[in-house]
């Protein structure tokens, strides 16, 4: 521990880290992007809940988003969205998806910490705290995701990747792994494999020998995923590798989104990652928002052909 760090103490170090300044336009741009993300997400409610009774909720979310984009009344909109998110969490609890908790936390942060337009004196410091907290959240998601994969062991042994070959789920990671496996297999002149593979239906084990290239594929993929998830926050935390870490994080997130079809989380996460890019935040968030709208509308137009993620 350096003398400066020792003098500050843990509280001082945390406070110092959380109050690093951010550009003026960053948080308003993020806030606008994020609330519209919540609205786009709510458009999937009728399919998720299988009922038309949710349309008034979508209307309420829309009004809340409009209010949250205003300069003075934004907190009323944010509070409404926070209550809506809490309702969604309670509805699904304990099966609530993790990104719901993250999004609720972000709404809480945006609500509690001041804005420099409404509080010129302390606003810049409060905005910095909210930006740094969101950055910290997304970094910890990657870090602990990597740590969890190590402690549970299924990625270290290649088991988690390989189990996707046994899955009957017609979307997401199983489809990606099965397609990738078939493609790599064709490079090795392997005969085409019928998926899903048959696992053990009872308690007796079933023999399942994989070719050497497949075992290598499972192991290398598992280790690379763990390594990249751990490397991202460590690189970002270290000033000399921060720039590399931020770009790596973007690549990893896009990879996760595409491979696991976790696009809903991907857009929220990329929004958080863009907080690390301090130049031209309005342009950055506008581009992301346009992509998000196009993606969400295509999912809605394709209707039931694309499963809900």
């Amino acid at each position, binding site marked *: 521990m350096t003398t400066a760090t020792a003098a500050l103490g843990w509280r001082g170090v*945390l406070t110092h880290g959380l109050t690093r300044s951010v550009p003026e336009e960053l948080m308003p741009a993020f806030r606008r992007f994020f609330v519209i993300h919540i609205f786009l997400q709510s458009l999937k409610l009728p399919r998720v809940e299988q009922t038309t009774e949710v349309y008034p909720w979508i209307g309420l979310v829309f009004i809340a988003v409009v209010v949250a984009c205003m300069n003075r009344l934004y907190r009323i909109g944010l509070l409404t969205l926070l209550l809506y998110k809490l309702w969604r969490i309670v509805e699904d609890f*304990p*099966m609530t998806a993790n990104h719901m908790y993250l999004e609720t936390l972000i709404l809480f942060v945006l609500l509690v910490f001041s804005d420099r337009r409404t509080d010129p004196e302390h606003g810049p410091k409060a905005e910095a705290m909210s930006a740094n907290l969101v950055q910290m959240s997304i970094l910890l998601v990657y870090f602990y995701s990597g740590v969890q994969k190590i402690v*549970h062991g299924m*990625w270290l042994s290649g*088991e988690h990747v390989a189990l996707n070959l046994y899955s009957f789920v017609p979307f997401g990671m199983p489809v990606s792994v099965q397609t990738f496996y078939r493609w790599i297999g064709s490079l090795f002149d392997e005969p085409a494999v019928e998926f899903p593979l048959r696992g053990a*239906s009872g308690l007796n084990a079933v023999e399942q020998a994989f070719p050497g290239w497949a075992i290598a594929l499972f192991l290398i993929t598992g280790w690379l995923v763990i390594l990249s998830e751990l490397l991202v926050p460590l690189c970002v935390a270290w000033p000399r590798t921060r720039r590399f870490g931020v770009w790596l994080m973007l690549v990893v997130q896009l990879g996760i989104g595409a491979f696991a079809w976790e696009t809903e989380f991907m857009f929220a996460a990329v929004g958080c990652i863009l907080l690390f890019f301090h130049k031209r935040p309005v342009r950055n968030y506008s581009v992301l928002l346009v992509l998000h709208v196009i993606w969400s509308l295509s999912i809605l137009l394709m209707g039931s052909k694309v499963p809900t993620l």
Partner: protein
Amino acid sequence: MKIDIQWQIRIALALALVLLVWPVVHMAWSLSFGLSSWKLAGWGMYATNHPFYMHQKVIFLPERDLPVQALGPFRGISQVVELTDGELRGLEADEASQDADSAARRIERDLRAIRSKHGIGQLVDAWGEAMYPEGRPCCALVLFTEPRLDVLGGRAYRSTTAFYHEQGKVHELGRYRGDQVDEAEIARRIDRAIEELGS
């Protein structure tokens, strides 16, 4: 609404601490007490099998004795069966028991995220009410089983945790892996564990 800046700093510190500490607590919980790594914001998505790959099987038993063939195959994501004259028979709730059936399915869903003895007791009670309106058998064996794979050893198997419910009490019997012993031996071990409960 304006919150004092000193309070904002305190809230920021508290949130930062929770963000740092909660996943560690979550990890300890999910490793030892049946919490799915996927749930409750511990950021363990994809670290283990998704909760819906966890098969749940409730076997109502007329007596404590468990024949070797009693476990049977696992179909779908959940089964409720009864053992009659040494044979397994699938159970289905009738029209009059739809409320109890829905309650049981809700508990079953929750147990995929957080498994507890209390929840298992509720599950057996709810299924008992749905399937046997006029009184259910004395005991029930509850199996939670998930697909596993030994990549290097080339074996697909199931890992099963067994619980036994009798007189309102739930006992954990143990965890059994199909790559280590065969099905008949697992049934024998479960039977022995039930017998030991009595002694």
